[in-house]
């Protein structure tokens, strides 16, 4: 169970403060897959990094399993938008990084990492270096690295955001299959694609900007196990269209507001 309780975050840089999040509250039941979605600048990545223990809230607390998050912990693992592999280490070492951080002996961690590389479809690439892999394959290493530490909570920060459209589709379906096989992991998945959120998540937390806040929490009505066929069904198409429309509205309002701000600043 993840509980976000009245979390606010104010960043201060060069004497200027910026309100990234205001009074954000919601909960994620254990074993659920939720998606954080919203226009850029709504603080969704900030919120995720708070859950990971990399950023501290200015106000409020985040509790995971009843304990307040004060730093990173072995119960959580993060998947990054730009993969963040170590370029000097081969695929196996990268996948085993989290296990190495935990001091697991070399032989054992290689074995575990190898098994997870097989699961994400990278068996045989253990001795390759990241620069020899495509973006999609690099993110597979990133996912294997996170799963290898067997976290209770999986935190994913726009993991497919920097991939091309086709690779992205393939990755979405592979993640869907992978997650349904391991179904007990609580997952928070940041994205700005409604289609992605509706395909993968049980629940979508829609956020709005300036300041970042929760606008809407939507239950995704499609039963599991889901598969590729879902993305062609009329229900799915209608559901994503509606939510996408809402998101678009938000973005337009935000744009109009920032134009106002600028003209006010000029005047």
């Amino acid at each position: 169970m993840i509980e976000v309780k009245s979390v606010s975050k104010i960043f201060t840089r060069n004497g200027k403060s910026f309100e990234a999040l205001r009074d954000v509250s919601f909960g994620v039941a254990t074993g659920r897959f939720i998606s954080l979605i919203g226009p850029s600048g709504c603080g969704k990545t900030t919120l995720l990094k708070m859950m990971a223990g990399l950023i501290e809230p200015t106000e409020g607390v985040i509790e995971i399993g009843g304990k307040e998050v004060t730093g990173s912990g072995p119960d959580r693992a993060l998947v990054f938008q730009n993969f963040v592999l170590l370029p000097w280490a081969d695929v196996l070492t990268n996948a085993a990084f989290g296990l190495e951080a935990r001091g697991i002996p070399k032989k054992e961690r290689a074995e575990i990492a190898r098994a997870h590389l097989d699961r994400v479809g990278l068996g045989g690439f253990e001795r390759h270096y990241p620069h020899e892999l495509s973006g999609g394959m690099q993110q597979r290493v990133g996912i294997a690295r996170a799963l290898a530490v067997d976290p209770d909570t999986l935190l994913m920060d726009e993991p497919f955001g920097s991939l091309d459209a086709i690779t992205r589709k393939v990755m979405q379906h592979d993640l869907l299959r992978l997650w349904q096989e391991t179904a007990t992991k609580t997952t928070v998945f940041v994205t700005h694609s409604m289609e992605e959120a509706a395909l993968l998540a049980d629940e979508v937390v829609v956020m709005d900007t300036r300041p970042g806040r929760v606008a809407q929490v939507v239950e995704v009505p499609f039963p599991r196990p889901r598969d590729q066929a879902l993305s062609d069904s009329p229900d799915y198409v209608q559901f994503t269209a509606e939510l996408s429309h809402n998101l678009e509205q938000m973005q337009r309002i935000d744009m109009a507001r920032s134009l106002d701000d600028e003209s006010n600043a000029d005047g």
Partner: protein
Amino acid sequence: MADIDSKVDGRGEVATSPRRGLGSLLDPPRLVGGAALIAGFVAWEIYARSLENNIFFPTVGTMAEGLVRLVQDPDFWGAYRLTLVPFLWGWVTSMAAGVAIGLIAGLSKTTWKLISPYVAFFHALPVSVLVPVMVVAFGIDLLARSSVVFLFGFFEVLLSTVVGIGYISDDIRDMTRSFGMGPVRAFRRVVLPGAMPAIMAGLRIGTGRAVVGMVVMELLLVSVGVGRLIIRYRALFQADLLYALVVTLAIFGLVALAAMRRLENYVLRWRGDA
């Protein structure tokens, strides 16, 4: 890898042939470099022959003969021995201290704030101007001569190491932190390899500067080794030997840099062809 051009010829057969052209011919940098070197020697030879009096500017042939005489002269080897001892001391200590202090300064902001004014000062200063000061302060013994070489190399290595640690991306720091890796392990597995490209570049450039320091030390500080020979040949108008000696210094520098380049490529072999 050679590009393969496929084209269909008149009879409808597919012919494949490696693409040839000026580009691929000029591709191996060694060939180009060698040709440039030969062109330089030819220009030198033409100029030297055109002079009525080439006592101060020998032809390539005379210089080469001088080189042969030089390597047979025990004085030459003795001079190098005298010059190389302080070079080796200064070089090894500057590289080791530069990396060590650079790592500390790269990891500790306080340390960096403390030393950065000095680093900026010594890095901006032409170190040669310190040499007369050092003679006054330390004399001309081995320590003083090694110190000159040290000063030439040290700050380059120190600065590169600090910069290298700074270049490790926030993402990689976040990633390391998110998996809860302890500081000692993170230093070994993330910080050190992350800073290694910059450290190796610093060692290579620092080595070049240490070689410059060696020559400056000989010419400005105390002429016991190669510097003494340079001064002697100049005084005796032995231009062929003088030029030959300068060429040996250049060869020494090139060999030192090539060795560092090799080491760099070996240590950073994960970069592949880059």
